[in-house]
């Protein structure tokens, strides 16, 4: 079993839709949870970062972590064509490990 599972998609939605991207993880010791966005032919860039359970909002983006079910979600409101990218979830144990574990990424296409 992979430590972080993510549906690869592709996911295609019309402009303005609410997008839900999800990951599950297996190790209950993971403490930090991140979402990275990767445009075509570019490196990933950090989009959202959360610690432990709960929600974090930044503009049109909301990251949600449910540690009881080991579930990570990213919601995008009022999606735009510029949101078309691959979204990677990632997690880390914290402490001195200094190693991120990534999901395989979900390819999102927002149609104008």
């Amino acid at each position, binding site marked *: 079993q992979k430590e972080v599972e993510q549906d690869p998609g592709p996911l295609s939605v019309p402009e303005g839709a609410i997008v839900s991207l999800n990951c599950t993880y297996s190790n209950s010791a993971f403490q930090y949870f991140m979402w990275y966005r990767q445009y075509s032919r570019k490196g990933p860039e950090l989009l959202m970062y959360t610690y432990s359970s709960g929600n974090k909002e930044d503009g049109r983006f909301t990251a949600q972590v449910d540690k009881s079910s080991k579930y990570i979600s990213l919601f995008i409101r009022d999606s735009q064509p510029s949101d078309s990218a691959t979204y990677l979830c990632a997690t*880390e144990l914290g402490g001195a490990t*200094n190693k*991120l574990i990534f999901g395989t990424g979900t390819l999102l296409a927002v149609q104008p």
Partner: protein
Amino acid sequence: DVKVTQSSRYLVKRTGEKVFLECVQDMDHENMFWYRQDPGLGLRLIYFSYDVKMKEKGDIPEGYSVSREKKERFSLILESASTNQTSMYLCASSDTGGSEKLFFGSGTQLSVL
């Protein structure tokens, strides 16, 4: 803004060649990382470094080595390139205290023929 620069965007090499991938960061970050990214497998950590001349194996170090002689520069070396090392290679850096906020370069697409 942090800038992580990878020396080549595309590389084509022959099987058995020694390959050097160079990465430079300009924000005085302590930590540097090399990942490879393959369809369906995601990002996998090859090597990382906490400090100059320090290196740690990641999840898939076989067939690779690294060098960090200066804080800003982290090199990935393929000792004898093989076709299964055809991949997108991504360098990243982060500040001390945690790797959760990684800054990535744009990647090097390496093809080994």
